[in-house]
């Protein structure tokens, strides 16, 4: 499903006015994993992309159970959204016509396969700036469900027309 302008504005790197997010995945037997991610963008209005630089358990989980949930780490301005959907890691080396949920891997990798070059993390404070950025691929989540995570409305569907 398509994301609205407010969502697209939030799902950007911090330097462009966006937010850190949490990505939750889980193993097939249901061991969840929740990690903060800062290299994030929206692609074609309905895919959320995250650079795969340090993923370990996320990668193990997505390899066996391709589903994820993304939540904004800073739930300010009513941005209490939870984005859920099929997720995978698109990597160089996939066949040139490889598609995931309606998007071509090659298109995503061409634009976001080298994130540090496209959006250098110059705004990241020194104590948490990754020393060397080596990217293996792009974590790609197709948004199929958006719900509210505010305590009073947790789980309610969000109307993206707002």
């Amino acid at each position, binding site marked *: 499903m398509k994301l609205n302008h407010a969502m697209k504005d939030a799902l950007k790197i911090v330097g462009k006015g966006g937010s850190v997010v949490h990505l939750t995945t889980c193993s097939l037997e249901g061991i969840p994993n929740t990690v903060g991610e800062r290299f994030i963008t929206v692609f074609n209005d309905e895919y959320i992309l995250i650079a795969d630089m340090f993923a*370990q358990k996320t990668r*193990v989980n997505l390899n066996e159970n391709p589903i994820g949930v993304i939540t904004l780490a800073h739930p300010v301005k009513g941005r209490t959204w939870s984005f859920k959907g099929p997720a995978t890691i698109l990597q*160089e080396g996939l066949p040139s016509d490889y598609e995931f949920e309606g998007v071509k891997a090659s298109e995503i990798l061409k634009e976001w396969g080298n994130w540090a070059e496209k959006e250098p993390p110059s705004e990241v404070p020194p104590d948490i700036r990754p*020393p*060397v950025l*080596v990217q293996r691929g792009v974590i790609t989540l197709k948004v199929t469900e958006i719900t509210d995570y505010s305590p009073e409305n947790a789980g309610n569907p969000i109307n993206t027309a707002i």
Partner: protein
Amino acid sequence: MKLPHEIVSLLKIKGINDTVVYLVTSSLNGNINLLPSPYTDVYLDEYILIPDLFAQKTKVNLNENRIGIISIVLPYSDKSITIEGPGNIIQWGHPQKFRFYDLTAGDILKQWGNWTEKENILDDENQTKPEVFAQRGVIVIKAEHINYN
């Protein structure tokens, strides 16, 4: 312990498509993982080095349980050996003076941090050539015990 000469020469970088080893690691609760690697080198006759090309479960395991076993089938024989010892991953971003036994991160990364400078992994002759080479660091196993099987 120092490795015997024949094992050192087996594991040192030579041509592409030479010895494949398995690196065996385990989670703290005993989930075993095998990482095959066609790329290995030996330092000081004691440390076996493998490039970390985004090893996943290996990394998860070494992050909680720092021990590894290298398993090799010896060429031209039906014998195999395993080499056991403490394991770690020396990564870009570690301070230069970060130490793992006799090794420092600065030294290891300078020499092996870009493995393609040592071994022509991106050569078309490489039967396991990766599309893109992205190296996060160097997996190190310190040889402390050898089993001949």
